[in-house]
């Protein structure tokens, strides 16, 4: 399983690792092409974590232009609204055709509530190449419904990414349900302290089979006191 880091490319050159990739964002648009050509696995996010507006759209479209046709892209997340599956679906259908025209693989961001996992669901299975597990709560993200959705995505041969995976336990959980990649703030801030632990956990992959995450559990702490 890959850990996709959002840090700037020059700093990440010092952290070559088979489980390390890049998650470029619209804020990086002047440098995304260099990242894509650097040989590391890469995907593109939409910077919509704090909302979506015309300025965000302008930056997103500029990034799409910059990475258009570049090889090796795992996925590009279509714009989404955190915690709103309905609006996220509307945005997906607005932007996914644009990504296809640019030769980029669209990812649909899974948001609660109201998701289903059969072919009659809001998830546009036939129009995506990747599924991005978003969601505002861990109860949703780590719950049985998402686990079933991930299994269905894999049966369709889709890449599955889980966002905001900020503990070693959650890395192990993501691997255990078959996620192909994750990202998380925890691993890239003070990366000399935290990144290697995250990469090792990603490398352990499905060797770590875990059950559902207990609601109140304290997890292994990366860094000095673990």
């Amino acid at each position: 399983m890959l850990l996709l880091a959002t840090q700037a490319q020059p700093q990440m050159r010092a952290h070559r690792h088979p489980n390390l990739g890049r998650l470029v964002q619209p804020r990086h648009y002047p440098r995304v092409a260099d990242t894509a050509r650097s040989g590391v696995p890469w995907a593109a996010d939409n910077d919509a974590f704090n909302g979506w507006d015309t300025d965000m759209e302008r930056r997103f479209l500029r990034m799409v232009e910059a990475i258009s046709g570049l090889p090796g892209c795992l996925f590009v997340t279509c714009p989404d609204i955190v915690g709103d599956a309905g609006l996220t679906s509307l945005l997906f259908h607005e932007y996914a055709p644009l990504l296809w025209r640019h030769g980029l693989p669209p990812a649909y961001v899974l948001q609660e509530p109201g998701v289903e996992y059969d072919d009659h669901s809001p998830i546009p299975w036939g129009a995506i190449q990747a599924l991005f597990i978003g969601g505002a709560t861990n109860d949703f993200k780590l719950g049985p419904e998402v686990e079933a959705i991930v299994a269905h995505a894999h049966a369709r041969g889709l890449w599955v990414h889980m966002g905001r995976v900020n503990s070693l336990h959650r890395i192990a959980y993501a691997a255990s349900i078959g996620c192909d990649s994750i990202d998380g703030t925890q691993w890239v801030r003070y990366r000399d302290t935290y990144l290697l632990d995250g990469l090792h956990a990603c490398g352990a992959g499905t060797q770590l089979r875990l059950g559902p995450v207990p609601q109140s559990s304290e997890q292994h702490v990366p860094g000095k006191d673990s």
Partner: protein
Amino acid sequence: MAITEWEFDRVLDAAILKRLRRDPAYVHAEDAEAQTLAEEQIEQEEFERLCARHGLDPGRLQFSDNAGPNRA
């Protein structure tokens, strides 16, 4: 004041984006390398600022799975 992991990520991301839109070192960087360095600096400063505001040690940050980063 305690902050949840969710709030921590959202506030940090918003603060970084706000700086990236205004900070002269980033906006007027000479080239992509300089812009990258400026971005790195901004990210680090905002991370440390948010940690300090909530009494967190940035080098010993802890996230539990269903709560915010704990005090180290």
